[in-house]
Every structure is written in structure tokens, then in C-alpha cells.
């Protein structure tokens, strides 16, 4: 597998305040990377970097071998914890948005045959996330879980090279969260996505990811807490899980039916195993 995203000696500094330092990362195509760490350890800053919202003060980032532009562009999709969908558009309208922006630069709307094609694509995407019966609802009429499903569909329709998730399930009930874990695992397999997910939930990080990164500060100056930044302190590839995924892809190359149970239970075992190993 090739490296989709490369960070080379990346620093993020705001004046005297160092947020991230010496971050070296290679993220392969098809990886599901979970990022954990205490508050203020630069998890969100790292995501903003990859998103193009902020640019590194030192170092270089490249996506697919090309240096990353410090702008938010459609090769990176994102789902935030909140405010990820447009309240003034219906479910279908939200999903169409990305297609319309691309093909109708002036009006932002499609007509005729092109609109029908886009509608078809949007419907298929919404079916994949289980929202086929909510096409005409507004986000305000839906539960938090449904809104996050919509946010995922909205991002995936652009076929991003990387999908960034910023605590996407943090505001959901435990039950709904389980459903969302099943969904994102299925989509990750079906669409062969590369995912970077920031989370507070260690179980979630190990349960979903094929690799877990922990960010924290290595050096601390008690008199100047902002003097040193955080970096990657643990980088745990979940080998057994990666092997299981490869096995799975070999056994059922296309259109596998994914049971929710196997992913969950297998992950638990790997989790404990991995923590002891390191």
C-alpha cells in the first residue's frame, strides 16, 4: 500500500505557543487511523492541518505525492461533531450540494438531464447510509444520528481521497453510536476509504481503527506550558486487524454482506492485546 498522506517534520506554532512539533507521519491508502490524546494535545490542530484550515509553520505535507495547498478542497471530506449539514437544505439538497458546486459554478444549481443524473447519484449515496426514507426532511427534523449519517453521505458523494472525522459520534447516544460504528466500518470497506478520525473514546479508537495514534507533549516546561508542543507519542498499527481485513478482502472481493457483530467482537480482543504489547 502506498502512502496517501505524508507529514514531514511538521510544526504548528502561534507566536510563542507551540501546538505541534516534529510530527512525522505516513498514512497509507485504505487505512483507518484513530487519533487520541488529552485535551489541548493538538488533535484538532492536526486535523485542521490535513484539512487545509491552517498551514504548518515548518515542515511539509503532501497528499498523494503532491504538496498540500492550505485551502479546503474537495479531495478531503470532513464530518464534524456538529454543524456539518446545512439547515436550510433537505436531506436530498444537502447531498446534491457537492455535485452542484462542481458542475454549476455560477448558479450553484443543476437542471434537466444533469440534475436527474445527480439526483440518482445522491439517492444511491443516501441509500448507502440508510437515509432513503428521509429524502425530503430538513436537518432540524432529524435526530443527531441521522444528521451525522447525512453529513457522511454529503462528504462521500465527492469521493474524497481522505475522509476526516472530528469526534463525529461524540454527541450521540451509546446505542446510536454503535449503529454509526457499524455504518462507518461498512462504508470504509465498500468505498475503500482512507479515514482519519479524532476521538476522545479509546474504545472507539481501537474498535474502528487499523492504526491508533496518540498525541501528547513529550517535554513539559512547568514555567512555560506552551513552550513545547505535542507530537505522536504512540503509533500502534493493529496488525491482526489489518491482516483480518486483507483476509476478508481476499475471501469476498466485492459486495460483501457485513454483519455488525463480527467487527465489534474481534476488535475488543485486538484492543487488549495491543495495549499489553506496547
Amino acid at each position, binding site marked *: 500500500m502506498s502512502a496517501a498522506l505524508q507529514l514531514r517534520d511538521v510544526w504548528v506554532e502561534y507566536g510563542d505557543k507551540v501546538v505541534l512539533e516534529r510530527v512525522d507521519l505516513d498514512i497509507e491508502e485504505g487505512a483507518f487511523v484513530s487519533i487520541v490524546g488529552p485535551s489541548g494535545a493538538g488533535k484538532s490542530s492536526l486535523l485542521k492541518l490535513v484539512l487545509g484550515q491552517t498551514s504548518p509553520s515548518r515542515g511539509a505535507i503532501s497528499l498523494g505525492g503532491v504538496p498540500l495547498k492550505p485551502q479546503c478542497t474537495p479531495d478531503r471530506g*470532513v464530518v464534524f461533531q456538529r454543524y456539518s449539514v446545512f439547515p*436550510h*437544505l433537505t436531506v436530498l439538497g444537502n447531498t446534491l450540494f*457537492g455535485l452542484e*458546486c462542481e458542475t454549476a459554478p455560477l448558479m*450553484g444549481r443543476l437542471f434537466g438531464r444533469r440534475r436527474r443524473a445527480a439526483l440518482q447519484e445522491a439517492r444511491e449515496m443516501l441509500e448507502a447510509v440508510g437515509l432513503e426514507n428521509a429524502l425530503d426532511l430538513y436537518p432540524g*427534523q432529524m435526530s443527531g444520528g441521522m444528521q451525522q449519517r447525512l453529513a457522511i453521505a454529503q462528504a462521500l458523494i465527492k469521493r*474524497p481521497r481522505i475522509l476526516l472525522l472530528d469526534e463525529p459520534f461524540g454527541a450521540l447516544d451509546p446505542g446510536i453510536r454503535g449503529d454509526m460504528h457499524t455504518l462507518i466500518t461498512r462504508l470504509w470497506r465498500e468505498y475503500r476509504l482512507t479515514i482519519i478520525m479524532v476521538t476522545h473514546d479509546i474504545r472507539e479508537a481501537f474498535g474502528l481503527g487499523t492504526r491508533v495514534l496518540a498525541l501528547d507533549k513529550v517535554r513539559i516546561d512547568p514555567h512555560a506550558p506552551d513552550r513545547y508542543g505535542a507530537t505522536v507519542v504512540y503509533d500502534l498499527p493493529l496488525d491482526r486487524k489489518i491482516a483480518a481485513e486483507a483476509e476478508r478482502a481476499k475471501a469476498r472481493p466485492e459486495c460483501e454482506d457485513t454483519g455488525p457483530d463480527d467487527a465489534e467482537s474481534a476488535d475488543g480482543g485486538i484492543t487488549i492485546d495491543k495495549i499489553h504489547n506496547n
Partner: protein
Amino acid sequence: MSGFPGAGQKGTRFLLGLLPILLLLILYLIVAADRNAINPNDKILPLPSAMGEAMWGLAFERDRLSGRYLFWADTAASLYRLGIGLAIATLSALVIGLLLGGLRSIRATFGPLVTGIAVIPPIALLPILFITFGLGETAKVALIVIGITPFMVRDIAAYVAALPREQIVKAQTLGASTWQLLLRVALPQAMPRLIQALRLSLGPAWVFLISAEAIASDIGLGYRIFLVRRYLAMDVILPYVAWIAILAASIDFLLAWASRRLFAWAHGEGQ
């Protein structure tokens, strides 16, 4: 419509709202009848019969001098000025507000100017308007526009600027350009807010309209009130004031209704 518990059914709420108005009317009738019992020629608190007679003359008999039905001509003239003024103010508030709120460079350049204009009392500009535009319709419409536009611009600009950052980033990752951000994300979300700002501006707009008409005009609701004031004609003034209240309340009601119809998503309806 939300409310605290105990607000009751829709019909009950309507009747409850009617109650204080009825009480005030009854109070007026008692006091007016009292004064008329002492002095049948009292002009300060006329009885409904006197008001009806005066208004009948204005509404259904041609004015001997101009040949017009004054009440309707006054209403049409005032609503025309108000309508043009509100339309210009609303449209410019939308365009300027979107640009100010959406584009940082524009906000930095023109923000202080808008704030500066907003703190000038519009009535203080009235003489300038009369000198510049003459005593015709333009000056009156301009007073309404100058009076309410800065507030609406600032309201829309603040609202657009406060749209969640996540939404903007999300739109950008979906390929939206700055133009598409304004057109597809900011504009539609600003619309219900614009109607709300317009509703709040209705009160001031009427103030500026009546002021302009009172100072220099030959027709209009404000002009009539200030004209008949010279004869202590409360039998015309009171019905005119009530009529203005009815007009203002109807416009407000229509705007609220339109907002709920057109932008149901902003009113949390259909859940």
C-alpha cells in the same frame, strides 16, 4: 410558536390577547361618555358616533377641493412611500449585509462606515434630504431608507459572520467557491433573518414616514393627522391612529406568515 407552559390552545390565546384591548376600549367609552354628559361639544374625547360621522365624510364623500376620497388617498400615498422605502432598505440590507458578513476584506473596509452612519439620528438628516431631493416623494422615501437600512445591514452582517465555521469549511470541502458560499450557504440562511429584521424595522419605518409627512406633504396619513390637529379634531386623529395600528399589525402578521411558509426549516415546524 413556542411558549411557556400554560399558554393554552390557539383560540384561547387569541381571546386572551383580545381581552386587554377590549378593556381599554370600554375604559375609553366610560370616560368619553362622562365628559360628553357634562359638555356635549367636547372635542378631546369624542364618542364613536362623532368619529364615525367624521370618518364617513373622509372615506365615502369626495373632498370638495381635490375631488378625492381623502382617507383612501392618504392610505394609498402612505403605503406607497412605506412600501418603496421598505423594499429599497430590505434589498440593500441583504446585499450589503451578505458582503459585509461574508467577506472579511469588505467588512474591514466598510464596517466602520456603516457603524458611523448607523449612529446618526436619521431625523437630523431630514433637512439635508429636503434640500437635496426637494419636498417630493424622494425625500420621504429616502428618510425611511436611511432610517432603517443601517440597523438591518448590521443585523444581517452579524448573522452571516456568525454562521458556524464548520458549515463554511464543510461547504469548501464540497467544492464551494466564495461566490457559491454566499449564494448557496449564506443567502438562504440570511433570508428568514432578513424578514425578522424587517419586522423589527417596521416600527421605526412608520415613525420616519409620519415625521416626513408631518413636516412637508400634501397627502398621507401623517399629513392628515398633523393637519387636523389644528382644529383639535380628535374624531379624525383617533381613527387614523387606530387605522395605522391595524395597517402596521397586518404587515407584521403577513411577514411572519410568509416567513413560516417560505422558510419552514427556520421555524422548527413539521417535526
